[in-house]
């Protein structure tokens, strides 16, 4: 019943991420792969999952697939729309988010993230958007999942150019205990890295079919640790792909 050969990279990442949401209650997600993953999880492994959007929307029931986290279709028919002070203060910092999804330009072995600059902050080679709410998602979600479309040494770096969103190890070194475990899963086009929380490095726990451990190590900018047994990711099933293609994103807005 598998259908790997037909799964695109977006489909693969969405399906793998969706499985990691099994049994979760609340997820803080941006538009794109995280929403696809959460929506699929809602139909499969996490029937009571609620997606909370940075814009303040809780319990959205969109008539169309949203194009932004603030799309009008997310608001009409939603269960609640909160002010940003309430969303960031009471919901996120208050500790109501199980899983936060984050992206980044660079990630290091402890799951610290850079979304601010390439180069020096003062006169960067590339000015990226910055934190937005990423720093708050990292500090306050129980755990964070990162989805990276391209696993390569320019993104998986030994030293970040700038740390925008620090994991718990950096926070503890700064004298402050954060609520969350930081990044616990990194899902890439090569496989899955995982760590349990403070004090741990990301390690390779699974590769996609056909990918070797050496390939992943070569694509990682630090000396990547590997689990005692590196598994193989179960390819997307026909059922998962069917739901994703027919129910979640029938217009193929994100399933490029």
């Amino acid at each position, binding site marked *: 019943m598998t259908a790997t050969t037909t799964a695109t990279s977006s489909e693969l990442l969405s399906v793998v991420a969706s499985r990691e949401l099994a049994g979760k*209650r*609340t997820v803080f997600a941006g538009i794109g792969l995280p929403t696809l993953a959460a929506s699929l999880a809602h139909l499969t492994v996490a029937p009571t999952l*609620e997606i*909370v959007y940075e814009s303040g*929307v*809780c*319990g959205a*029931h969109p*008539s*169309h697939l949203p194009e932004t986290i603030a799309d*009008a*279709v997310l*608001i*009409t*028919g*939603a*269960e*609640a*729309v*909160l002010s940003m002070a*309430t969303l960031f*203060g*009471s*919901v996120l*910092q*208050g*500790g*109501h988010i199980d899983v936060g999804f984050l992206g980044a330009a660079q990630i290091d072995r402890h799951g610290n993230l850079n979304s601010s600059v390439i180069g020096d902050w003062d006169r960067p080679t590339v000015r990226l958007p910055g934190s937005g709410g990423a720093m708050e998602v990292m500090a*306050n979600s129980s755990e964070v999942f990162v989805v990276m479309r391209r696993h390569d040494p320019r993104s998986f770096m030994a030293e970040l150019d700038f740390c925008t969103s620090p994991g718990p190890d950096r926070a503890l070194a700064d004298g402050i205990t954060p*609520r969350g475990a930081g990044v616990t899963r990194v899902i890439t086009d090569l496989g899955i890295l995982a760590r349990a929380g403070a004090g741990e490095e990301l390690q390779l726990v699974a590769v996609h079919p056909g990918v070797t451990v050496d390939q992943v190590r070569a694509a990682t900018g630090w000396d990547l640790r590997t689990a005692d047994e590196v598994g193989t990711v179960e390819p997307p099933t026909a059922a998962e792909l069917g739901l994703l293609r027919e129910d979640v994103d029938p217009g193929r807005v994100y399933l490029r």
Partner: protein
Amino acid sequence: MTMKDAIASFVHDGDTVSLEGFTHLIPTAAGHEIIRQGRRNLTVVRMTADIVVDQLLAGGCVTKLVSSFVGNSSAGSLGELRRRIEHADPEPLAFEEYSHYGMICRYLAGAQRLPFHPLRSYAGSDLPSVNPGIRKVTSPYPGADGEPEQIYVVPPVNPDVTIIHAQRADRSGNTQVWGLTGVQAEAVYAAKKAVVVVEEIVEDEVVRSDPNRTVIPSHAVHAVVACPRGAHPSFAQGYYDRDNAFYRAWSHISKDPARLREWMAEWVYGTRDHAEYVAKQGEEFWAGLAVGEAMSLPVNYGRRL
């Protein structure tokens, strides 16, 4: 969930229980059920400790009160509370006293998981001398005069359970309130568990037609209890008016311990639940608190064409 089950499940002896609702939507019926179930050693957190608190005290449920106003609205005194504080009669009452904004900031800090919340009151007041929870912090930024600036702070409050009354919610707990919204949302987010008592449980479509009206999303709510007229003698905007006569009467009832015991025997212990309390008041009584219609004009949330 029934009120009986909700109180049995979420309020335990020794718990810290927040009951909020500023004049409007006071969770009286929940308070009565706590009394009926004989809870003991509660710490009650409530900005305006009024009739329902006096009743909880009379029920012997409360050993400690955290509050910023201990009076029967503008209608007089709380007899049982005054006996407890002025004469330790029948037993002392531990009292942690704040101002209104101090209480609000405690809920804000609790809801936001902050170690403290700053506020521009308390300077020069005697309250910090009787409440060691009220402390000072030096700002890391210079003040207007360029000198280091101090400010008072209050600690977070995180009740074991917050109970509020609201006009309506859907089955999953998305709660809508209009009129005075008070501090209910902050009190719910500050709590470990939250019980929402409502005038009516409505269809999902009703709530979803106006998501900005939802002051508390379902993820913060652990039980929804339908209990019409459960805020009496306070009011529910658009449902029934305030029973001002009862507020005035309470000062007299509570002043006399014997009369207070009789009232409790008849109206709390003598009723099985709030439905019986409502029925006992009689339809004529409720007709006197009825309100007419003043409907909000609808707004368009828009639909993608």
